[in-house]
């Protein structure tokens, strides 16, 4: 289990919140509960959040991590926000395809493309 307190790197660019993971094992079973709490707390404090989660450097995730991402996605929608995922390693993307969660989440190759995909605020609905 990771001991480092700084598990997430959070950057704000205008109204977009970019979340990056600081350790490649961040989404393992032993770490996911705390990461999930931090992500949910982040969204709870935002109004109409536009959140990008980048998986750059992450080489593994478990089904518990998928459950956490679904919880975060629901929180974002409850706050009339939008969630995008990006930089997902091909092996991890296969996990999304097998579980068909690639249809639930909006996934983009890069942060730039994820950022460009956000709906304008006044047209924003549940996406």
């Amino acid at each position: 289990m990771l001991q480092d307190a700084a598990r997430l790197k959070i950057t704000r660019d205008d109204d977009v919140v970019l979340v990056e993971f600081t350790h490649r094992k961040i989404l393992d079973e032993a770490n996911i509960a705390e990461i999930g709490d931090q992500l949910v707390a982040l969204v709870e404090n935002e109004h109409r959040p536009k959140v990008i989660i980048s998986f750059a450097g992450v080489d593994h995730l478990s089904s518990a991590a998928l459950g956490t991402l679904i919880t975060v996605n629901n929180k974002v929608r409850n706050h009339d926000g939008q969630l995008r995922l990006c930089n997902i390693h091909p092996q991890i993307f296969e996990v999304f395809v097998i579980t068909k969660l690639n249809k639930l989440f909006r996934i983009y190759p890069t942060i730039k493309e994820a950022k460009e995909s956000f709906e304008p605020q006044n047209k924003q609905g549940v996406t």
Partner: protein
Amino acid sequence: MEIPSDLKRLEEVEETILSQCQRYAFTDRDLFALKLAIDEAFANAVKHGNHCDCDKHVRIKYRVTPRRADVVVEDEGPGFNPASLPDPTLDQHIESTHGRGILLMRAFMNNVVFSPSGNSVTLTKFNDAPRNNTEHNVAFG
């Protein structure tokens, strides 16, 4: 191996088994698949089988050869019927926050077999790497 029901112990389990697989040059894809399946099986044993009771243990047996890896994960729970689980890919379950572990085990392993009672699962992954060495059977550890 007899491991207390603690998810923090998962890393040592994986390292023990995957280091054997690396010795036989399993591909990165095989190692990813095995790590994922062991993750899911161990987490199920700890959370659903032993209900996170650290007085209960997860028993792990493994055998790695140049051709395949077999891992048995057994908990102290009463077991369950895997066929009774809903399909997590159906529209009505797609937003469920749990229930994908067995789907992933089956997708990434060559074979997944539950014991009749359901408290033990055997995971099998064949080595996809080209082979030019002879088979060396290793007893279940």
